[in-house]
């Protein structure tokens, strides 16, 4: 759009036509205060804080509703404007309870900040303030009406952003109040966005309520450990008697791929870390019972037994099951450990999407994957299968808001009337399980239409396909329903479109990372087949070239008595995949986990592991965006999976340096030589770390493995500086190995929804406390009724 020139406070400002004055001022570094204005939400003009003087206008105008025009002369800082702001704050504080010392928002409250910046120190009101008792709307949402300034941000983010419309306004005038949809309680997606967006302490979190104050916490922006979307969640950490305590999760840092968004799992799903069932001590099976022991004993025993079995029976007798929630570094290290130390290719994980087929089909089509950020900008989107509202909340947010803000077109094909239907420009219902036929039809196989045209006529399908073929920059999303050949068909369709891109939806936080890092019996990191001698074989000095066993085959192997040892890292195949626990009764089973899961219960050694919030590394989300995982807390008695793997290797008598290429630094320069006061040491360390130059002094440093990943795994050679700064980096699959065709039945979707998260979700109190857990959402019922 054409640019418009205007003057704000004597400063010449140029901004695109159609820009709001408040944004234009912000771009010029002039702050115009506001409560009700929030980018990407509808305009209100209700708080009157952004009043500015515009020349030739008799009254002060709200900067948040005024669109800039050529030659506009604006004053944002005059006596009149200052008085207006002061007056507004005075009025707001009139009925405000001023209970800042006990208010959870105290210290991060916009009303406090505004009062300090623009308000008056004294109140002129001496009459009684209006009071109304606090209400609990759900286990996680509390509402305190007297603190509310009625900016309607919560109402808008819930309705416009989340498409839930659970909040509204009741009564009028000074009695106006925000109300929940079920009279006295909320029935919604419990995302907590209303709490995050509340500028004051009117909406507070039940999980964080009265626990501490914002400045008492350390705020660590890390990647969520639940679904595969990779939202950034900021964890508030506080010291406590047992180490550190995660006090809250929120979306304080809006720099993540999720922007303003965070769902219930990202916000409240950290409480498993302090669940009383958490393991704090390693366990060894003695006389048939799991009994506590020291870490030394556990490592000794594990190392000893694994070495014996390897030496006696060969690597073929050992199998490894990896995790979809451990970091890329741990996954990489695990498969490297399995292949180079244990000498086995029997390594697998809980597969939730067919990434190898995607890679295989993508061969020769560079840049065909979309990042989570690109999805928000895409002019058209096609979703086949899956229910992002429940399984991929961030993806659903991106889709919804792309439709709302950019008028993007959404094409839906689903067997269920999913909630996103409300945003769809077209919705085609298909019989359950016919997603592959849709892919085939899109790829040009017209005969497939018979299988899918149950509710919509074949002609309509053909018109629909023609319309899709005309869409520039289409993003195609598909869930686990599309596997194997269907993936290839879909890519065939997408490759013929101009700039079309794909997103393959996995289910767990690092499902994609586990696949990328080669937790497959037949694939090395970067989808290189084990049978082909390549970089990895050279670098690691030998990899077994015979493809190993998949999860199901491992069980059969064990049944036949050929599996002598099983090493499970952060997985619960007994519960999640229905593996028969008794087949492993003859095997030596080592399990690393947070809790005594069904799988851990059959183990000979249980090692208490740290979760993703207690270690550092990287995650790759389902789109392939690489993000940093930062250590936030620590729980006494646990160790990260990285350290455990290294120490087991050490106990087996392996030269640890061969496994983790850490450096040989001899002296730690703590800044003495460079003047620690000047901050020079800090600056140097950032630079050094970004370039991978700092001495990795410890074999437990995941950065040492990240160096190797970036060196050897195609697509992961992204900017380290950006990664360390907390930004997301899209990893391209174009340089990956040829991938492979797997048995489609090996893919088992996670069956999770908004309020569950595999085994981990069982230990999240908040997720289990909300009313909606296990129920249909009200909005879904509406959609179904339509």
């Amino acid at each position, binding site marked *: 759009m054409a640019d418009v020139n205007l003057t704000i406070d004597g400063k010449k400002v140029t901004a695109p036509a159609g820009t709001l004055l408040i944004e234009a001022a912000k771009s010029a570094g002039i702050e115009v205060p506001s409560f009700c204005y929030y980018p990407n939400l509808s305009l209100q003009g209700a708080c*009157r804080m952004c009043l500015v003087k515009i020349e030739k206008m008799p009254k002060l105008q709200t900067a948040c509703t005024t669109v800039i025009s050529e030659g506009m002369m604006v004053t944002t800082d005059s006596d009149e404007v200052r008085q207006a702001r002061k007056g507004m704050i005075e009025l*707001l504080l*009139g009925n405000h309870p001023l209970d800042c010392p006990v208010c959870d928002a105290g210290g991060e409250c916009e009303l406090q900040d505004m009062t300090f910046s623009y308000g008056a120190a004294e109140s002129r009101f001496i009459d009684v303030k209006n009071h109304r008792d606090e209400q609990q709307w759900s286990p996680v949402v509390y509402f305190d009406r007297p603190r509310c300034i*009625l900016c309607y941000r919560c109402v808008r983010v819930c309705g416009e952003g989340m498409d839930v419309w659970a909040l509204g306004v009741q009564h009028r*005038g000074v009695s106006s109040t925000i109300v929940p949809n079920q009279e006295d309680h909320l029935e919604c997606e419990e995302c907590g966005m209303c709490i995050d967006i509340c500028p004051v302490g009117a909406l507070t979190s039940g999980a964080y309520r009265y626990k501490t104050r914002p400045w008492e916490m350390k705020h660590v922006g890390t990647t969520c450990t639940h679904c595969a979307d990779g939202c950034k969640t900021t964890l508030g950490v506080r010291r406590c008697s047992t180490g550190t305590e995660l006090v809250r999760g929120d979306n304080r840092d809006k720099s993540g791929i999720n922007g303003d968004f965070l769902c219930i799992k990202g916000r409240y799903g950290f409480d498993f870390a302090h669940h009383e069932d958490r393991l704090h001590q390693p366990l060894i099976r003695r006389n048939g019972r799991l009994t506590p022991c020291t870490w030394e004993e556990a490592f000794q025993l594990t190392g000893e037994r694994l070495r014996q079995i390897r030496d006696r029976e060969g690597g073929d007798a050992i199998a490894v099951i990896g995790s979809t929630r451990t970091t890329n570094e741990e996954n990489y290290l695990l498969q490297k450990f399995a292949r180079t130390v244990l000498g086995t290719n029997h390594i697998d994980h809980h597969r939730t999407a067919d990434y190898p087929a995607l890679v295989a089909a993508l061969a020769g089509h560079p840049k065909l994957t979309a990042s989570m950020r690109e999805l928000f900008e895409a002019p058209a989107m096609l979703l086949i299968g899956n229910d992002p509202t429940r399984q991929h909340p961030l993806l659903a947010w991106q889709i919804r808001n792309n439709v709302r803000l950019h008028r993007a077109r959404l094409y839906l094909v689903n067997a269920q009337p999913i909630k996103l239907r409300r945003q769809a420009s077209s919705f085609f219902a298909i019989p359950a399980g016919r997603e592959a036929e849709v892919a085939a039809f899109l790829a040009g196989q017209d005969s497939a239409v018979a299988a899918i045209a149950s509710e919509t006529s074949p002609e309509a399908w053909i018109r629909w396909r023609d319309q899709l073929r005309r869409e520039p920059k289409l993003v195609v999303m598909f869930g686990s329903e599309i596997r194997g050949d269907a993936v290839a068909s879909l890519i065939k369709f997408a490759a013929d479109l101009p700039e079309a891109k794909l997103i393959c939806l996995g289910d767990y936080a690092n499902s994609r990372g586990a696949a990328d890092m080669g937790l497959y019996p037949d694939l090395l990191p970067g989808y290189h087949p084990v049978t082909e001698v390549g970089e990895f074989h050279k670098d690691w000095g030998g990899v077994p070239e015979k493809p190993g066993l998949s999860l199901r085959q491992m069980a059969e192997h064990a049944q036949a008595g050929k599996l002598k040892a099983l090493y499970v890292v952060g997985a619960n195949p007994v519960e999640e995949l229905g593996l028969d626990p008794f087949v492993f009764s003859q095997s030596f089973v080592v399990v690393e986990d947070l809790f005594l899961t069904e799988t851990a219960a059959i183990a000979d050694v249980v090692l208490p592991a740290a979760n993703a919030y207690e270690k550092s590394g990287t995650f790759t989300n389902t789109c392939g965006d690489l993000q940093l995982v930062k250590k936030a807390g620590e729980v006494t008695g646990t160790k990260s999976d990285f350290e455990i793997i290294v120490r087991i290797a050490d106990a087996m008598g392996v030269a640890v340096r061969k496994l983790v290429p850490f450096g040989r630094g001899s002296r730690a320069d703590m800044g003495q030589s460079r003047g620690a006061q000047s901050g020079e040491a800090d600056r140097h360390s950032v630079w050094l770390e970004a370039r991978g130059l700092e001495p990795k002094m410890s074999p437990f440093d995941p950065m040492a493995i990240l160096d190797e990943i970036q060196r050897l795994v195609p697509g992961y050679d992204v900017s380290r500086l950006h990664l360390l700064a907390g930004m997301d980096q899209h990893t391209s699959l174009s340089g990956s190995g040829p991938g492979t065709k797997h048995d489609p039945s090996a893919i088992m979707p996670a069956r999770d929804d908004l309020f569950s998260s595999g085994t981990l979700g069982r230990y999240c109190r908040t997720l289990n406390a909300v009313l909606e857990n296990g129920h249909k959402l009200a909005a879904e019922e509406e959609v179904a009724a339509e």
Partner: protein
Amino acid sequence: MADLVSHPDEVKVVSKRFGLGATEIDRYLELDGYKAVRKALGMAPESIIAEVKDSGLRGRGGAGFNTGLKWSFVPKQSPKPKYILCNGDESEPGTCKDRLIFEHDPHSVIEGVTIAGLAVGAHVGYIYIRGEYRYLSEIMQKAIRQAYARGFLGKNILGSGFDFDVYWHGGAGAYEVGEESALMESLEGKRGIPRIRPPFPAVVGLWGGPTVINNAETLASVPHILLGGAEWYAKLGTPKNGGTRLFCLSGRLNRPGVYELPMGYNLKKMIYDVGGGMAQGHTLKAVVPGGSSTPLLTREEIDVPMDFDSLMKVGSMLGSGGVVIVDDSACMVKFALRIMSFYQHESCGWCIPCREGTDWLKKTLTRFHSGGGVRKDIDDLQYLSENMLGRTFCPLGDAAAMPTISIVKKFRKEFEDHLDGKPCPLEKAEAIERSPVMA
């Protein structure tokens, strides 16, 4: 039905058919009814607008915007349907003129709406009547039924090929909905909260279509203008303030009531001649010239012509024509409190200054009137009102602030008489009533 009053100075235009049984369409037709529509059907839309513009007819709702000019803002071509909205949500304290029009002459409103539809090319009109006037809905609905039956409404009206539908809609009792954009929200079934402007209703209004919103009295004047001609109408009033208007005289007068007087009629004469002067034993203290939202005039200021521009010059407004006479038995603090209680109750709560400002003004005035006032309060009342003035989302905040400022300025003495715990000099102070807020 209320008794009708009359005075020789009256120029009966809108009130021409009052008391003559014009609610029945036959009687209405005898009294020149629906002649203007017939005439308008033969006119080009531009010439209808020009006629109304030339007549100097200004909005009778309070703002006083030239009606013809307002109509001319409606785009000729619009992808969305256009609408005519008759604002009959007459809620201004002191104003009771639209009620009489609906009661005595409902067809003139229907006729006016139809002519406006012809002028801007709309095919649907809504008559929105105040919730508390529900008893008038019978009359209005009957009138609409009769108009349909006689072919003045519906498809192909009077065989002209022009379709026009009129619907009646009742409010739910909110002063705020008298504001035009809040009226549209209410009509669309939402909370009665004003919209952000621009865009103005003439461009984006009801359901996104261009919309003309006029007061009932304005629309009821239109047929008379078309029949009598713009020049005739304009000459009834003063320059730029064409025609006549209904003035609602209330207070301790000898002959209170609704009088139709030419624009520019002297206020003093209106009180002492038309209204019959003050009732026995009472003297004039102040006058509210145009409904409770207009600044008060003191006894010394009443020698002004009642038109939009002259009242603006003396620092007040003509408003909606509700002339309220305040006599010497009234306590001005109580008066301010009464006004503020109304606005506090009617504030929609959308924007801070109005929602919180009216509440605090009411609280302060309540305490002040019952003897709990301190000297600082007097300045605070003014300070608070000035903080609201011109900074609210819609004019309701101004409507609450303007009379308060004028009362505090002009009757400061009375406020000072309430200080130091003294009881109200004019009436027994009541205990501080707890306002039923946050109910």
